[in-house]
């Protein structure tokens, strides 16, 4: 670029007039571009501020500290109508992140399974997977959300029939209704921290044991039993600690209240509809990406692994998938970003995500420019962080040339 040009010619000053000096010209162009950009931003900002003032609208972000006054149904962090607008935005940001994170995990798993399934030699499995992909990727995500919300979840048993069910089956603890899925909420007693610590120790021990087993396999050719030992470490160890401490865990069971079930945990249908729709919709695209990635690995690789005696499952897991991942990850990142942005469709079913709550604040306070700026900043930030992580992951998975 410009700087490099200047350097190469530094020993021998160019014999051209200043007007044609490439180094100077590129500096001037860059400076002019920079000035133009700064100018545009400044102008847009000051113009908006001026016009808002002329329209007698107050501006600035100070309103975020005033009392919100409205309630939010789904909040994972403490919130009441007395909290500030800023707190309401935080609640909604958490909700957006939760549904996006859950959606990404589920979409990846489902997409992977469907994508591999489409390549299955089993006629039925591959056709079923094809049907899935073709249905879900050809329907707009908003319709998929409505389908789940009004077409499936709204038709679940009403809360009245659940009350009746509880009367008939007093020991039931798990209920599916059109108000959501009710389940017992765990109450962690004193000492439960040790159980979690034991679980952590188990996980670390399992990782260490696997590394040791791998080393041993390389050294002796014999593979020690890994799965059973690891399961024992991860599950049995915490269970033993749990039993020794006298089972410091109880449950808060949902019981019929006046209008809704009281107590317990509830997964709201608004969340479920959005989560299922986003996951299954994006999974269809991921399935195609996975299929393309696998097909991108030459057939000879699988044949070679069969020749080495690997079974189909192992060949896929150990030989094909690691190579396919290199092809899969970059387009997968786009799908993740799409899923995050599509989560703003939450507004259609009343899930309190960033756009829904932001919209309410916009309407209650009238600060549209500020709210829209916040929306854009938050989504850009989330997306950039996601793609930074995926780029890092991609670099880690890329072919290491030795």
């Amino acid at each position, binding site marked *: 670029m410009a700087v490099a040009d200047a350097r190469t010619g530094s020993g021998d000053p160019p014999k051209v007039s200043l007007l044609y000096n490439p180094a100077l010209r590129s500096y001037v162009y860059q400076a002019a571009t920079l000035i133009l950009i700064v100018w*545009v931003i400044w102008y847009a900002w000051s113009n908006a501020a001026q*016009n808002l003032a002329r329209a007698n*609208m107050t501006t600035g972000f100070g309103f975020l500290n005033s009392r919100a006054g409205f309630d939010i149904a789904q909040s994972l962090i403490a919130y009441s109508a007395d909290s500030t607008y800023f707190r309401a935005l935080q609640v909604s940001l958490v909700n957006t992140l939760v549904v996006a994170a859950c959606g990404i995990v589920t979409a990846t798993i489902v997409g992977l399974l469907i994508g591999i399934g489409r390549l299955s030699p089993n006629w039925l499995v591959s056709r079923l997977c094809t049907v899935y992909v073709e249905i879900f990727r050809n329907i707009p995500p908003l319709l998929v959300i409505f389908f789940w919300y009004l077409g499936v979840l709204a038709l679940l048993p009403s809360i009245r029939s659940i009350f009746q069910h509880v009367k008939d089956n007093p020991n039931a603890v798990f209920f599916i209704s059109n108000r959501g899925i009710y389940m017992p909420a765990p109450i962690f007693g004193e000492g439960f921290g040790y159980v979690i610590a034991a679980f952590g120790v188990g996980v670390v021990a399992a990782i260490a044991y696997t590394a040791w087993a791998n080393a041993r396999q390389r050294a002796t050719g014999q593979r020690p039993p890994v799965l059973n030992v690891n399961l024992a470490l991860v599950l049995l160890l915490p269970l033993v600690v749990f039993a020794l401490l006298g089972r410091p865990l109880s449950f808060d069971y949902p019981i019929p209240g006046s209008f809704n079930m009281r107590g317990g945990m509830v997964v709201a249908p608004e969340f479920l509809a959005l989560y299922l729709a986003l996951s299954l919709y994006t999974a269809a695209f991921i399935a195609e990406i996975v299929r393309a990635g696998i097909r991108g690995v030459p057939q000879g690789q699988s044949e070679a692994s069969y020749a080495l005696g690997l079974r189909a499952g192992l060949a896929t897991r150990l030989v094909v998938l690691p190579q396919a991942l290199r092809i899969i990850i970059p387009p997968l990142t786009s799908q993740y970003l799409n899923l995050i942005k599509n989560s703003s469709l939450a507004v259609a079913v*009343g899930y309190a995500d960033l756009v829904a709550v932001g919209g309410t604040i916009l309407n209650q306070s*009238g600060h549209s420019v500020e709210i829209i700026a916040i929306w854009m900043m938050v989504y850009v930030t989330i997306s950039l962080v996601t793609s930074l992580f995926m780029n890092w992951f991609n670099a880690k998975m890329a072919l290491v040339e030795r």
Partner: protein
Amino acid sequence: MPRRFRKTPTPGKQQNDNEQRLLNMAKTIVAALVGAAVMGIGASAAQADTLSDVKAKGFVQCGVNGSNLAGFGAQDSAGNWAGLDIDLCKAVAAAIFGDATKVKYTPLSAKDRFPALQSGEIDMLARNTTWSTSRDSQLGFDFRAVTYYDGQGFMVKKELGVKSALELNGASVCVQSGTTTELNLADYFRSHNMEFKPVVFEAQDEADAAYNAGRCDAYTTDASGLYSIRLKMTNPDDHMVLPEIISKEPLGAAVRQNDSKWLDVVSWSHYALVAAEEFGITQANVEEMKKSDNPDIKRFLGEEADSTIGADLGLPSDWAVQIIKAVGNYGESFERNVGQGSPLKIDRGLNALWNKGGLQYAPPIR
């Protein structure tokens, strides 16, 4: 102050002028580049004479309810708009142009309505909008005429056996986001030490569907809206509106602040409807009433020789006649849209004339 910092006299000023001109030119160019959104606000805010603009373009752009709120703003199967809010739009158009069809409607959601007015996309907002302090001041609007005195209520399924809103402790309540309703709901339950689970929708249609499907125990909005929404339910008779009215909701037309000529036209169009009812002038007898001996009526209908009421408002002298011909008087409009002549069958209640125990009151027209 050291000498060298002093401003140089004339030559410098000359230079400043040049710079200023360059600056202005550059500003213009950049402004052309920036375009769209910001400029949209700029263009509308620069003018504060909506009446002239409306006359120039030849129609009134009226922001109305986009979710078919029967009785207030709704389209029939042929696409014709009807409702109390629609009648005000028509009245304004009739007053200005003598032609009630010179209205263009912009259907708006609760969330979109304020930006639409602020940005100048619409000339007036007649969308069952509550007049409140913050909307009047902070949002930069002006309200004056109240077309319907409403209050917030609750609708429940009869099978719940609930007879009062005070029995709703623990209930799930469907509500539309970004409304005063949402705030009143929170306040009401808190002040009565009751809990509730809000189920919040942006669009009224979706809130209706969710309530109909049993997602909520109760639905809350302005009482007038409840009657209208009740008709949309699968079995309207399964639902009842509870007696409590928990808030004051004066619904009125809003215009942008600092445009009092336009505010005058919009609010006096409503007052003309109310005055007409008070005078006993109807759509049918308006021509006849022109010959009335009553000086108040003659003045109102523009029949008094040297009356300048219409002209002072920036309207033709027969503005009131045109309004009444177009939509009738307030009582006629009320009965046709929400009263006994409509499926809603709402009583006049607070919306009766002031001399019949209601709140509808037009200032003297003189």
